[in-house]
């Protein structure tokens, strides 16, 4: 038996977010500050009717997967035009979007949240060589920008710096939340060679 399959995939991620007040999830909150907000003292069971009002579903349209494929089969137990208990399996393996295609899902899809936040760094203008742009997080060298297009950090506030030779330094205080993605467009304008280079953090 021999089977060959070629598949091509195209993933279009559409970040459509809609809120529906369908009501399902119980509010989880034992924090003092949040209790103060809800009007409940700490360690007091929250009001159930208030919980019902707060429950929310966020419905997102995920990646739309479009594929094309070709398969060739030869063997005694294959039924291309009739019913086969394996037919569904083969088709599924060919088209399984999470197995066959190189689709990367952004953080937060399917509620996946490992407690880290993502920082995506891009350089402006595009002529800046990312291999020469040094990235510092809290004044510590993290690497060059070509290796740090995506950084995963624990929730917190950080000082982000991007430096490149003969260009202005980019410095910004960033706030990272778990399961969130923060896009940074570091603008590094060119400066005249006579001007002294900015000091590293």
């Amino acid at each position, binding site marked *: 038996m021999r089977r060959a399959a070629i598949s091509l995939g195209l993933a279009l991620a559409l970040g459509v977010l809609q809120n529906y007040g369908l009501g*399902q*999830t*119980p*509010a*989880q*909150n034992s*924090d003092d*500050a*949040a209790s*103060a*907000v*809800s009007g409940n003292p700490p360690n007091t069971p929250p009001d159930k009717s208030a919980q019902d009002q*707060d*429950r*929310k*579903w*966020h*419905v*997102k*349209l*995920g990646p*739309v*997967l*479009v*594929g*094309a*494929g*070709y*398969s*060739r*089969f*030869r063997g*005694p137990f*294959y*039924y*291309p*035009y009739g019913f086969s208990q394996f037919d569904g399996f083969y*088709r599924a393996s*060919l*088209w399984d*979007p*999470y197995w066959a295609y190189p689709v990367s899902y952004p953080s*937060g*899809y*399917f*509620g996946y*949240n490992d407690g880290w*936040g993502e920082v995506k760094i891009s350089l402006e203008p595009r002529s800046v060589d990312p291999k020469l742009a040094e990235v510092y997080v809290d004044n510590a060298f993290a690497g060059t920008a070509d290796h740090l297009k995506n950084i995963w950090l*624990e*929730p*917190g*506030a950080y000082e982000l710096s991007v430096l490149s030779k003969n260009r202005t330094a980019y410095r910004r*205080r960033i*706030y*990272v*939340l*778990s*399961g*969130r993605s*923060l896009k940074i467009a570091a603008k590094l304008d060119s400066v005249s060679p006579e001007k002294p280079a900015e000091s590293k953090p």
Partner: protein
Amino acid sequence: MMKRKWLVAGLACVAVIAFAAPKGTVARSTALKYPAHAELDGVAMGAVLLTSQEARSNFVSDLNHCCLVVEVAMYPQQGQPVEVSLNDFSLRTIGTDNAVKAGSAKLISGTLQKKAAASRDVVVSPSVGVGYESGAVYDPMTGQPRRGGGIYTQTGVGVGIGSPGGQGSGTDADRKVMETELDEKGLSEGTVATPAAGYLYFPLAKKAKNARYELEYMLNGRKVVLRLAE
């Protein structure tokens, strides 16, 4: 020995001042640069209501879920400092009796955490495909080999349901980060001797569509009203 203690204390103070996180925003050159501005007792102030898009781009915390954000700048006269307190600011919906005081960073971050913890993600991923299948097969009825082929199509929908708080911002660590961000970008409380600016957060349970707002500020027992335009 005593001198050394004073030296250490002094150095600690210098270090705290030097490495303290910046507070507030940069005030524009004059109060007139703000869409809403007024002057009372020599104190000029300007304000602007942030749009949802501006709030989204200026903050990592998702303030659109709970609040309206107003950037306020104070310009005290030289030599006449002003005492700034969040309690002196309130936001009123024009044409109604509804008014709300500015919320502290702790209060707002707690509200956001509660809302995030109560949310849950549902992701729907449709998939479509078309393909061609060919091959030589044995007919089970006759036992003879046969060539065949055909086009097949396939559609599917994947549905994923996340755990509570799937949107993020629902943990205590996130609340601390949001509190830090809101505090650092917020209008500083206390004595202001030079132009100072920062954000005020007004928690609104429900934002009315096409509603217009005015910012009220109590200065020396007198009210300053700034009509905000979004």
